[in-house]
C-alpha cells in the first residue's frame, strides 16, 4: 500500500467519530409562555422569591415551582387552557395569588432533532468492537507468523 493511501485512510478513520458525534443529547429553543411580574406596593420588584403554579384541573397539586427573576418576573408554559393560579411568596410574610387565564391551546412541543436510534447505535457499536478486535487478532497473528 502506498504511504499516501495509508495516510488518507488513517485521516478518514480519525475523523469518522466526529461525524457521528453530532448526534446525542440536544435542546430546542422555545419561545412564548405566560407569566406574571410581581411588585411590592412601592413598585419595587419581588425579586428572587418563590413561585408556585397550580393547574386548572388540580388546584391542590403543584404543577411547577420556581423563582422570580431580578425584576420580579416569572414565566411558565401552561399545558392546557383554563384558569391557572400563580402564588408568589417572599418567605417574609408577603405573599400574593394571581389568577392567569389561558385561552389558547398550548403549542405543540418542537420535534426533537434527529437522535441516534438505540438499535442502530448498538449494531454500529458491536460491529466496530468485533471489527477492531478482529483487526487486532489479524495483526498479532501476522506478526507472530513473521517472527
Amino acid at each position, binding site marked *: 500500500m502506498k504511504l499516501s493511501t495509508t495516510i488518507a485512510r488513517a485521516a478518514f478513520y480519525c475523523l469518522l467519530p466526529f461525524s*457521528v458525534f453530532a448526534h446525542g443529547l440536544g435542546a430546542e429553543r422555545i419561545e412564548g409562555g405566560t407569566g406574571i411580574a410581581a411588585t411590592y406596593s412601592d413598585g419595587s420588584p419581588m425579586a428572587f422569591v418563590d413561585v408556585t403554579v397550580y393547574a386548572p384541573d388540580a388546584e391542590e397539586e403543584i404543577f411547577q415551582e420556581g423563582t422570580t427573576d431580578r425584576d420580579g418576573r416569572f414565566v411558565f408554559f401552561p399545558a392546557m387552557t383554563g384558569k391557572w393560579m400563580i402564588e408568589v411568596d417572599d418567605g417574609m410574610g408577603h405573599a400574593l395569588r394571581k389568577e392567569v387565564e389561558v385561552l389558547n391551546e398550548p403549542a405543540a412541543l418542537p420535534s426533537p432533532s434527529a437522535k441516534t436510534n438505540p438499535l442502530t447505535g448498538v449494531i454500529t*457499536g458491536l460491529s466496530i468492537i468485533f471489527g477492531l*478486535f478482529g483487526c487486532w487478532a489479524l495483526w498479532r497473528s501476522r506478526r507472530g507468523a513473521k517472527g
Partner: protein
Amino acid sequence: MHISEGILSPPVLIGGAVLSAAAVVQGLRELDDEDIPRAAVLTAAFFVASLIHVPVGFSSAHLILNGLLGIILGWAAFPAILVALLLQAVIFNFGGLTVLGVNTFILAVPAVLCRMLFVPVLRRSHTRTAFALVGALAGGLAVTLSGLLGAAAIAASGRGFRPVAGALLAVHLPVIITEALITAGIVSFLSRVKPGMLVRKKK
C-alpha cells in the same frame, strides 16, 4: 457510572488518562492471541449492558458488568472497557471523550482488583455454590468500588467526597444487587461449562 464532561478538573483528567493509557498497554500485552475473541465478546457485553437500565425511583442506573470482565479478562479489562466506553461516548453521548481516561480507570481498576482477589479463591472452589458466591461478591464489590472511585475523582476536582459518594452509592444500590446476581449466575454457569475461562491453566 459515566462522569460527564465539564465536571472534573484538568489534573484529574490528565492523571486518569495517563494511568489508563499505561494500564491499557499492560492489558494488551497480557492478552494472548486466543483470548482476543473472548475479549471482543466481553467488550460487546459491556457496551450493551450500559443500555440496560435498572429503575431506581424516578432516576435510573444501568448495568456495568465490570466485575465479570475483571474475573475473566484481568488486565485486558482495561482495553476492553476503553473501547466500549469510547463507543458509548461517540454513539450515545454517555460520558465524553475528555473523561474517557478517568472513566476507564474508575471502571477497570475494580475489575483488575476482582481478578487479583477472587481468582485465587476460585482456584480452590469446587462447588457451584462457592462459584456463585464468589461471583456475587465480585459483581457487587466491583460496582461499589467504582462508585467510590468515581466519587473520589469528583472530590479531587473540588467537591465534597461524602455527599457525592453517598448519592452515587444510593443510586447504584439496586445495580450492585443486580450485578451480584448476574455475575453469580454467569460465574456458576461458566464453572460448569467452561471452567478454563475463569481459572486459566498456568503456562
